[in-house]
């Protein structure tokens, strides 16, 4: 199977569980192939967990789920050292982070300290513990979820940390007929459990390496930078997209090109991804009177900005 066919097979596989959301599934794969992490922001019960679960099931990868609560400690994620009496030494017991795909559920419910322990792992792909570093096995992907409807008792992630997520996605309610299909499912089993793995971890890594080879034409890089620069110059934004943001957009575009079966990027990739990859990296200016962290607001501003940047011809 060529990479394009493999990717399509995975998409179809997941689509058997997550009905009517091909775009979300595609973006999920983009995040995976771009070695990025995903922040799913939506109300409960639209399939955030199921999505992460199906993805993990489709790949022959280890999958751990961490339910973030306010009393969760860093060690609950990273792992603990326990004194081994037989060996007369401290022994590192890896936490749930040592998995290929980690679902961090309701990430904004835990304390910043715990959050940051996860985020270090996300950016470094390794865990430092007791002066020792433990590399995480590739592929490593964190799918975090948070509920935008709740504010009480939450610790919203700061922009610097949101930046670590490649993209922020919303799933949204399914269309009525798709929803009907979900309800009509006969099996009592969790739908994700029915999926068969299609790819091994090493094959995922190979696909990730292929993303690096996707060709981005010089003018596209300039186009991308023009978009990023426009966020920094916009009066509506207090904080523009960082260089890491630009890098993320570039990587995501390459991954999208691969997912769509191309060996080169198109302006369309960048244009489509900008409202997904960029909004959580910007701050809406206070004087606009808009809610600073409104998801929709930021997304709309990005969309408007992108619509002013001429596409290279």
């Amino acid at each position, binding site marked *: 199977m060529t990479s394009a066919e493999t990717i399509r097979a995975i998409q179809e596989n997941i689509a058997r569980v997550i009905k009517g959301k091909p775009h979300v599934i595609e973006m999920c794969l983009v995040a995976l192939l771009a070695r990025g992490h995903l922040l799913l922001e939506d109300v409960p019960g639209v399939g955030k967990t199921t999505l992460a679960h199906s993805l993990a099931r489709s790949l022959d990868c280890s999958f751990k789920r961490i339910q973030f609560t306010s009393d969760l400690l860093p060690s609950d994620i990273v792992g603990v050292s326990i004194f081994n009496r037989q060996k007369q030494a401290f022994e590192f017991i890896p936490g749930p982070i040592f998995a290929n795909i980690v679902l961090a559920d309701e990430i904004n419910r835990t304390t910043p300290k715990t959050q940051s322990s996860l985020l270090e792992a996300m950016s470094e792909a390794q865990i430092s513990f007791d002066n020792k570093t433990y590399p995480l096995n590739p592929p490593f992907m964190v799918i975090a979820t948070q509920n935008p409807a709740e504010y009480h008792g939450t610790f919203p992630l700061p922009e610097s940390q949101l930046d670590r997520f490649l993209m922020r996605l919303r799933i949204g309610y399914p269309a009525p007929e798709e929803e009907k299909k979900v309800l009509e499912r006969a099996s009592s089993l969790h739908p994700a459990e029915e999926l068969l793995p299609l790819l091994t971890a090493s094959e995922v890594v190979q696909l990730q390496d292929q993303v690096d080879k996707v060709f981005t034409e010089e003018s596209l890089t300039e186009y991308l930078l023009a978009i990023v620069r426009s966020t920094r110059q916009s009066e509506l934004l207090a904080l523009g997209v960082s260089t890491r943001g630009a890098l993320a957009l570039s990587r995501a575009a390459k991954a999208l090109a691969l997912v769509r079966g191309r*060996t*080169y990027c*198109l302006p369309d990739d*960048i244009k489509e991804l900008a409202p997904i990859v960029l909004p959580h990296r910007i701050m809406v200016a206070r004087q606009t009177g808009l809610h600073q962290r409104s998801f929709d607001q930021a997304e709309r501003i990005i969309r408007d900005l*992108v619509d002013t940047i001429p596409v290279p*011809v």
Partner: protein
Amino acid sequence: MGYSFLEQPMLLSQALHLTSILLASASFIGLTLGAGLPEWLAALTGMTLIAVLLQNMGMKSVDRFTTRMPVSAIGWNLIVFGGFVGFWIDLLWVSGDLLPAGLHFLMILMVIKLFNLRLRRDYLHLYAISLVAMLASGSLMTDLWFFPIFSIYLLAGAWTLLLFQLTKTSEVGGDVWMPEPIRHERHEGSHRVSPRLFWIANGLAFGAFLITVVIFFTIPRVNAGIYQKGFGENLRMSGFSDKVNLGAIGSIKRDPSVVMRVELPRSPLNDARPFYIRGVSFDRYDGKVWTNQLSYRRSLIEESPGTFTFRGKRAFSRAQLGEAIQQKILLEPLDTPVLFAAPFIESVMGMFPSLFFDATGAVYLPFPSSSRIEYTVVSRSNVLVSEDLGSESELYPESVVRQYLQLPFQPDRIKTLAAEVTQRQHNPYEKATAIQAYLTRNYRYSLDAPLAEQQQPLEEFLFARKTGYCEHYATAMVIMLRTVGVPARLVTGFMATEWNEYGNYYVVRQQDAHAWVEVYLPHSGWIRMDPTPTEDNPAAGGPVWKVLGPIVDNIKLQWNRLFVQYSAADQLAVVRELKAESMSVRNKALDSMTVLFSAFMTLLSEIVSHDVSRIRIGLLGELLGFAGISLAILFWLRRRRPWTAWNLWKNDRNDELVIVQCYRTMRNYLIKKGLSSSTAIAPLELVEITRSRWRDAHFSVASITELYCRTRFGHIPLTYEDLKRAEDELHHLLELQKSSL
């Protein structure tokens, strides 16, 4: 070409490529055999042709060499420019002649084109080049070799034209956007050279060949088109048979069709107008009809090819002659063999098999011409010498007396009248002038005089109606002169009055047909006299035509001269002129370069010999200014780095330029059509919008966009078929009516 379809049918585009190369090869071989090329150029072109041919037949190694020639579009342009510079060098120094230099340049262009056969227009350029090369080889080579080469050229030409048309129309449209796989594989079957097509093309080629041969051998080698007026439709010139029926000219005096154009070296003086163009003269009148008794014709002597002269033995010539008048006459087909010219003809230049003249000084063709003829005549008229003004002697030569004093049976009344008119005059000239004045003054000019049927038209005119036109006047004058013993004759011809100042020529029409009188004076010879009163002929048409008419008529004349009458001799003259011209251009260029060079040397020596102390402030300022400008240029070069755009050895981006242009055109067109409003639209978005809002255009837009994306952003080279498809789709799109929006 046969092998191609027997084993594996060839793709149409591949076949087109092959026949195009064959076409180029035929013209190249023609040139080489005609020794029109130096060895190195022949070798270069030959090798290129072989390489491209091998590539066409699927030799991968050659393919890599030719299609991956690492020269960008700008690089090719530079090469063409270099070739052009080489052409001038060739013209000025190496071969020093326009034809070889042009051929060398042509071959270089061909080589360049062969390496760049991507678009349909490239193919068209190649055809144009090979056509010119073929024409050139046709002029260089006269031996039998030309025949097989020409046959090959014709065959390849028929094939090429057919395939060119087929590849244009055989694109079949689908309606789905297919992201990656190349779509045209689907229709591959219909894109191949089928056996039927093979025979059709060869049949066409053979048919074309047959038609060429037939036309070649059947078209007469005269300067006449096959659709030109035949004998039956010649202009009627009833006045110019061997007799003149009194009243015959009247019917044609209203016909404005052009009979001839008489070009003069310079505008005639006012007193030389009107311009009389003599046809034939008549000596015998029987009361109703004029005839020429001296109609025995002898050949004119052809002095040199195309030049006929009287050898100085002009009929009835006299010592004193007028100024020589050179006329260039373009004569329309007439039903008379008479060659018209101003009196009296000394020599005639024209492409005639032979010419004849009679004793009256008229010149004849062997037979009436069925086409336009052009000839040049030098004439000298007789001058009225002073002896004839004073002398009363009436010593006429015997032959003149015998021929030109003949009278019809009963001229008593006329004799009385003539005697009355001339009673006070003593010498022939005065008598003639008196009669002329009498007729002019006392008779009224009118074309509505049906005198032809009358028993005695002359008496009727002179004594009853006193109304008539030129023939009556002239006849009356001749007869009256003869009754008083002055030899005279009637002359018919044309009286040209319409001077075209744009082309320096007289336009002579049927209505200018005229009859006048020649009087024989003892010392001067035949002198023209015209008793007909001048009559104002209103020009035809409105005021606009008065202005435009001469211009249009001049264009007609030039067309005839440059194209219809164009002959091998003219060709040679043009070539010689070109050669002389190119030589003079070359000399001039060399001269000016010498001048420039010497000026430069003078300047240099002056600078060298200049004392340092004598360097003025001004010079310093100039130097500083120069340095400043240089620095500015350097700075600009550093900033803008224009050479980054000139990367000659970058991978071939020629097709990218083309497809980007295609896409741009398409996008601007769609924006104009209101499908999109901004330049911030990405390619696939555009496709999507078209799909939802203008379904008819969707396939074209999708195809172009796919190819564009592939090349522009993927740097994947396109094949010729791709580019052709893109261009065709673009044409299709631009022709689409935006109906279903």
